[in-house]
């Protein structure tokens, strides 16, 4: 138990500092740019009628090599929010772990979850804390999305390396293939999309990103590896099953090859 004046309150970061447990982040080293750090690539989030859909491809690369085929980049942050990561994989996964724990710790200590706004700000602080590492090339730029129970709507947030937080109204994408993914989403976006249409749209966006960007992985039916897709609504964070995503991909690819011989973009 802490004395009142140095009680860390509901903050897990402050607790770690008091307890002398430092988050295991490697210290910055000069000239780190030459290292082939494992990188995660394209993630995308789209608002739909009941909330937000988040999706991410599965590829992680080190330089020009594929280091993992089945990396997960979309995580539940808590019951009603999710975080998707792009950038240096090691620090990004550690950031997610700490972020999830911070939200849960707050909820348990305070007896009530943080507001969605509070969660988004919390992530902003963590990204800003990573800035010295980002300057060394270990950039982490996540997307954060969730269902705001107080306002009754899905919201999504994009970040820059300095911790800048940008709320987007309709969609957001980050990572190496994000330009392509965001363009596809932009072309196919309609207000009040249904959940199914929104999932088809993000799958199409990731497919096109993988088609143009070598660091983004496409669907891999041989090994059964497909993008991770989750819906976040009033009912909570719901990760879609591999079976449903593979079926959607099959019909998406079927439409693409019959309608245009595979050359035109079918968005939804």
């Amino acid at each position: 138990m802490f004395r009142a004046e140095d009680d860390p309150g509901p903050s897990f970061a402050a607790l770690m500092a008091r307890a002398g447990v430092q988050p295991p982040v490697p210290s910055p080293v000069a000239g780190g740019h030459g290292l082939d750090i494992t990188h995660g690539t394209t993630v995308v989030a789209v608002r739909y009628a009941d909330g937000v859909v988040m999706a991410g491809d599965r590829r992680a690369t080190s330089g020009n090599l594929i280091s993992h085929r089945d990396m997960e980049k979309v995580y539940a942050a808590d019951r009603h929010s999710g975080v998707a990561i792009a950038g240096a994989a090691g620090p990004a996964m550690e950031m997610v772990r700490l972020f999830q724990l911070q939200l849960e710790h707050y909820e348990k200590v305070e007896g009530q979850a943080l507001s969605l706004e509070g969660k988004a700000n919390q992530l902003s602080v963590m990204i800003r804390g990573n800035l010295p590492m980002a300057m060394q090339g270990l950039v982490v730029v996540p997307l954060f999305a969730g269902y705001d129970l107080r306002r009754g709507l899905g919201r999504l947030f994009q970040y820059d390396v300095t911790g800048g937080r940008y709320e987007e109204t309709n969609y957001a994408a980050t990572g190496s293939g994000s330009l392509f993914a965001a363009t596809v989403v932009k072309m196919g976006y309609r207000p009040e999309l249904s959940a199914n249409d929104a999932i088809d749209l993000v799958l199409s966006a990731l497919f096109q990103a993988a088609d143009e960007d070598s660091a983004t992985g496409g669907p891999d039916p041989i090994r059964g590896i497909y993008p991770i897709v989750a819906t976040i609504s009033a009912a909570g964070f719901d990760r879609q099953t591999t079976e449903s995503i593979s079926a959607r991909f099959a019909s998406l690819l079927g439409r693409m090859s019959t309608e245009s011989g595979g050359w035109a973009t079918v968005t939804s």
Partner: protein
Amino acid sequence: MSMPFYVAPEQMMKDKADYARKGIARGRSLAALVCEEGILICAENPSNTLHKVAEIYDRIGFAGVGRFNEFDQLRIAGVRHADLKGFSYSREDVEARSLANAYAQMLGQIFTHEMKPLEVEILVAEVAMARTEDQLYHLLYDGTVVDERRYVALGGDADSVAERIEAGWSDELTVTDALRLATSALAGPDRTLTGDDLEVAVLERDGARRCFRRYTYAEVDAVLAGATSPPTANEV
């Protein structure tokens, strides 16, 4: 130079224990029962915002009787202990037994070294995959740990509550049976308790990662009125 009065250590410990017991006896009791679906924790608590029963970690729950601010401090210390341990090692390494020992240390330390002992009794419960492996630790104000197997009652009225639970006990209790038994045991022969007077939570045996779930007043009332299927909504 004035000499401090000599007080025999036996007398000092006895005085502190009496003081702590008196404080605890003023509050209301609670009970925890191992049942088919998990561990039911049922506390008599007129407040609907100041909780006596709480979540510590994935499979670990906490409950306290006595002085609210004191057991709430212990609850937060437990959350910190568990979250730090889970972060430093792995989520699987967080166990009720080690937490109970940490609490025993804190309580024992305060009991022997501070002027005023804590006027609390606490429960640390961990649900397992099989009911025979569930763990219930009952901690007293002086750091004594009692390891219980089937049920436990805490508070000033604990002995008579425990007797009433024993009288109605069966090894096949479902969660709804357990809730009705706990409620009647807490109420005693002369009172009736309703959902409003109770705070109920369950550590669900086959739940998701976080097993702790609160029952709403309406859910408790439905069970007390005779509903046999446990509430299913998945909210904490």
